[in-house]
């Protein structure tokens, strides 16, 4: 049984209320930080913890905090990115829905560390019921003196607001989020300047994911060094994984980083193996934007080493034979899954969510979706596959924000590993007429074997 830091009290009845949460030791980090630590000391603990951004990019959170322009005379802001929209990722919603106070607590402690007097939680519009839960939690925190003027009698004051988005995936990109928060069209900004220098209202701003901010709570409570002992190498602490797809036990799991992927899939403590006794075909380990991996590359790296649930291990082999931990959206496919259909679904999503600002993503995502639709529905041509590779390659790295990459990587990786499947669609249009074609007759590849 791995250590639980965020979901430890998830099953305590009434944990969503201040009273119960406080009884379980909640808000200890606020007390500890505000009463016994300086803001810099808190930042130092976060640095020591090795905590990496849980939103997907995995950038060290302490380092991000240290970039914040503390010399500026402008107010500083902490913005929590709760615009969780990546297909296959639902951990933040679970956390906010079940233990809203851990986020509020993390916001207070983190804001204190950053010197922010006003902080925002930007929540995607689809989570309207979660917003109500958060607002209730914030009201309770205000009522109990953890928010507002002179928190716990110290001279630190903080106002915390929840801002609903209008439901655009792009507003999960930190600068688009800031634009949206400022009341503008949610188009990503060009960098530089970076938010740490000129973010919200052109002021120094840190944008962190829900889970990152929640993780500050145990870090402050147990100390950064202690937290860093969990995990392997540069992947420290615990991570929430949203497991979905063809597994027996889909759900949100808190794992200690370093857990073998194989154990995560097959252990009854976690996913409980592939459903219906079927075989493992592929997996998208970090949310829809990361490269897909065939089963054998998921469990073992190209070098034959055991693949672990860490940032480093999952990206071992680069994009040729690796993927990313990303946001922890772990999507598992059994042998009946159609990679082309799955990719088309992803492409459709990225096309729909492109903001329309820069050309490669605006035009490229729509084009890729159309081509994939055509292949999947049996109207593809042999040249379409190379066309997809070419378009994806030109999008990658050439857009203002990472949405272009997010749209391009799945296409490039799916074709890299499952090219035969695309060719099959083109060569045998009559065999893919039924949308459930591979459920009826699973595709058998000569190159990539299914596991199990």
């Amino acid at each position: 049984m791995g250590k639980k830091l965020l979901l430890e009290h998830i099953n305590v009845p009434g944990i969503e209320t201040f009273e119960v949460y406080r009884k379980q030791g909640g808000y200890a980090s606020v007390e500890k930080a505000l009463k016994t630590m300086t803001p810099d000391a808190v930042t130092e603990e976060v640095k020591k913890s090795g905590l990496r951004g849980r939103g997907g990019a995995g950038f060290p959170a302490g380092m991000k905090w240290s970039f914040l322009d503390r010399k500026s005379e402008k107010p500083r802001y902490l913005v929590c990115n709760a615009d969780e929209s990546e297909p296959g990722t639902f951990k933040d919603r679970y956390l906010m829905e079940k233990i809203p106070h851990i986020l509020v607590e993390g916001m207070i402690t983190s804001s204190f560390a950053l010197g922010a007097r006003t902080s925002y939680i930007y929540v995607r519009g689809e989570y309207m019921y979660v917003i109500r839960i958060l607002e209730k939690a914030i009201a309770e925190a205000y009522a109990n003196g953890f928010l507002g003027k002179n928190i716990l009698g110290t001279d630190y004051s903080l106002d915390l607001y929840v801002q609903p988005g209008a439901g655009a995936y792009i507003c999960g990109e930190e600068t688009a989020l800031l634009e949206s928060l400022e009341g503008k069209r949610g188009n990503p900004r060009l960098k530089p300047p970076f938010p740490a220098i000129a973010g919200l209202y052109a002021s120094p701003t840190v944008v962190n994911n829900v889970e990152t901010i929640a993780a500050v709570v145990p870090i402050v409570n147990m100390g950064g060094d202690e937290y860093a002992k969990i995990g392997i190498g540069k992947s420290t602490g615990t991570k929430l994984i949203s497991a979905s797809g063809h597994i027996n036990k889909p759900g949100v799991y808190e794992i200690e980083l370093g857990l073998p992927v194989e154990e995560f899939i097959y252990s009854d403590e976690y996913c409980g193996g592939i459903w219906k006794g079927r075989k493992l075909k592929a997996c998208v380990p970090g949310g829809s934007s990361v490269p897909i991996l065939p089963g054998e590359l998921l469990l073992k790296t190209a070098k034959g080493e055991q693949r672990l649930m860490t940032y480093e291990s999952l990206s071992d082999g680069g994009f040729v034979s690796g993927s990313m931990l990303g946001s922890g959206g772990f999507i598992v496919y059994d042998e009946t899954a159609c990679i082309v259909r799955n990719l088309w679904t992803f492409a459709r999503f990225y096309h729909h969510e492109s903001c329309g600002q820069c050309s490669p993503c605006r035009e490229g995502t729509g084009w890729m979706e159309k081509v994939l639709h055509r292949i999947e529905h049996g109207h593809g041509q042999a040249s379409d596959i190379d066309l997809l590779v070419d378009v994806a390659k030109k999008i990658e790295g050439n857009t203002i924000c990472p949405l272009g990459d997010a749209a391009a990587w799945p296409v490039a990786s799916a074709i890299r590993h499952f090219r035969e499947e695309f060719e099959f669609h083109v060569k045998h249009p009559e065999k893919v007429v039924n949308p459930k074609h591979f459920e009826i007759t699973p595709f058998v590849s000569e190159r990539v074997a299914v596991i199990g």
Partner: protein
Amino acid sequence: MATIIIDCKTYEVPLGKNVLETCLNLGFDVPYFCWHPGLGSVGACRQCAVKVFKDADDKKGRLVMSCMEPVVHNQHLAVHDADTIDFRKQVIEWLMTNHPHDCAVCDEGGSCHLQDMTVMTGHHERRFTFNKRTYKNQDLGPFLNHEMNRCIQCYRCVRFYKDYAGGKDLDAYASKNNVYFGRAEDGVLENEFSGNLAEICPTGVFTDKTLKEHYTRKWDLTMSPSICQHCSVGCNTIAGERYGALRMIHNRFHEKINGYFLCDRGRFGYEFVNAENRIKQPSINGDVVERTELETRLEKIMKSAKVIGIGSPRASLQSNFALKTLVGEDNFYHGVSDHEHDLAELAVRILKDGPVRTPSTKEIEKSDAIFVLGEDLTNTAPIVALAVRQAVRQDLSGEPEKIHIQGWQDAARKNLQQQRKMPLYSATIHETKLDDICTSANYATPEDIARLGFAVAHCVDHNSPAPEHFPEALQVRARSIANGLLAAKNPTIISGAGCASSAVMKAAANVAIALHKNGIVVGLTYTMLECNSMGLTMIGGHRLSAAFNAVINGHADTLILLENDLFRHGSFAEVGDFLARCKNVIVLDHTKSDSTDRASVVIPAGTFAESDGIIVNNEGRAQRFFQVYESTESIQESWRWIINIGKTLQHPKLQTWQNFEDISKAMASEEPMLQNIDEVNPAVDFRIVGQRIPREPHRFSGRTSMHAHIQVSEQKPPTDDDSPLSYTMEGTRIQPPSAMIPFYWSPGWNSVQSVAKYQHEVGGSLKDGDSGIRLLEANAASSLVYFQGIPEAFVPLEHHLWIVPTYHIFGSEEMSAKSASIQKRIPTPYLLISAVDANIYHLKEQDIIKVSIANISYSFPIKINRNIPVGMAALPYGLCDAPINALPEWGIVETSPLTELHDYVRKTKVQH
């Protein structure tokens, strides 16, 4: 300077620019869309990708957007590397996925930036084989067509319209490859600079609707460099003709005046040239006559008559000077009301004799504080209003530089700037379109505007006179304005003839002089009512009332009226009486008016399009406009008609003049204020390698067939004795001097973007420098002292309204108001009164108010305004049959007021 290496060659380039600009300046053809020299970089289109290498050993490099990449020392770049070429090709392929490829029927076709860039990148093979997305277009009013299917989503339109011009009704809607640029619903694009979208748009989404009315390909036009005639700013334009009709006005880049942009009045006001009410044949007493008969009759009239001449603020210096010479200095009268003349003369005197320099619009754009007195700039001098907006948009806080954000990084700067604005103080009679960016907007009568100005001047320098009994609340405001101006390094004070008050103009002068005495480099701008108001004032002439007296007293019996509708400059009764008293009224004009209706002899003059001439803008810059085409034999420049009349009369001077140059030379030697006027542009015999400058591009088509229905053999083109331009496509292909650029074109650059090839550096001045000669410079040894004569504070009068003129960009200017498209935008006549006065007279919006002005009753529908001062009303110039030129004037309200309310308001007035 920095050393950079592009494609293995070393270049010395200035720092502070982006790689795209630098490459373009070095002559590299790097394609681009979203970047525009006037708008800066946003890195959206990804078309301008180049490769940047870490160092000389880096062979791989990485793609960057050149518009977003600052130039740094020792930068290794590749423009023509296989990956970048491939990527740029791909970008065009993306943009083309949904583009309709309707070039053959597109207004932009052949002069389209998208076409040019497509050819430049080499994309020619289409791999996108799906249906294209289509949009519904909007009706955007009389000026612009909307064809969204052609859109490549470069965002230039909204960036210009919203950020640059302050428009509010154009936006980007929806997302992904379905982004829509338009209004929230169909309707007229409200911003006064909307026409620029036709040039800003790199393809055919926004195109000129007036051109479509009589469409022709842009390269099939005969084009000349011209000067806009619709306000006193003197924007540079390109005017194009085909088949004897003026088809299009385009921007002609002038770094100091209009930059890349024109206002809608300037762009669409040209249609009066083609209007039905043009005078096309000479007539005597209403009968069309042959030219020979006209000349005989004129000779007869002139020989036996006592002739006076009345000039015009909308006619060229040449025409005015020719008339002055014909009738003699003693008999030449300027053709504006005495009041108008006094204002213009005051402006010239202050700018010539005063210590303060009048800035160009470019300099206004760089001002760090602006104080506008009495002028509704958007309606009287729109391009100055646009310049003021740019000045306010500047971010001089130093914050962007501190974090290494450079001037061209438009998106980042905009974000950093947030709500921060440069100070703009305005005092006007009612709200203006610049109020949204004002630090403080004050609404007052002209008298109180002047008093505020005098008070500000007094705060700046206590030697400047202070208004008496000035309320403390206003004193506080004056002090804050003065402090704002004193804190600036190069503030600009803007006033003008707009509210018809010399006191306002004097107050502006005092503020400027006071700042000058504080050692501040201040600019003083006066906007005038007409395109050549300044020039007419410099030529001089007697007052109009003296002309009336001369006829009444019998000193004169015959009038030659030059391009002027006198009814716009005097009361209807007085002017009518004057014209009736003249035995002969000879009018030279191009368009019918109340004055031509009363003329015995009407001579068809050419409009600006059919004329050569020089006019002087409000900056005192003399600029030449060139004849675009010779329409008919009967239509000639006024000055040419006058020379001919002079010849038949064997006038000693006039008979020695042959062409434009002769008049200009004579004017330069005789008019003390116009000494260099013959140097405004190169001499008539100027040639480039022995060749003239062609008015027609080499792509001009149909030359041999366009007149075939009249005569099968090709006609000999007209010769131009007045300029170095030719009326054909033959001539030099070398770039002409900046004053004589008839059109922009460069190999591979067929769109308006080709202007870059005519500039020193992209966005900078033209290679040959700025055209025009400034005639007004500050007098360092000025003896001009502070103006005294501060008016009394305005006190409302019972049963009266103090009626002052107000202006509309569409409708207030005489000629543009005759343009068909402009006419659709002219508001209905109205009288603007305050909400309080509306209550007093128990009137609702659009109710009719009866007012007697100078003993004549008028009825106007009212418009109610919250901010206009109580007891004052504003009457729009040129919209109603009212004696605007007599304003400001008290009007007696003949609509009975509601007594109870009145008592209440009277009490508050007394308190005020």
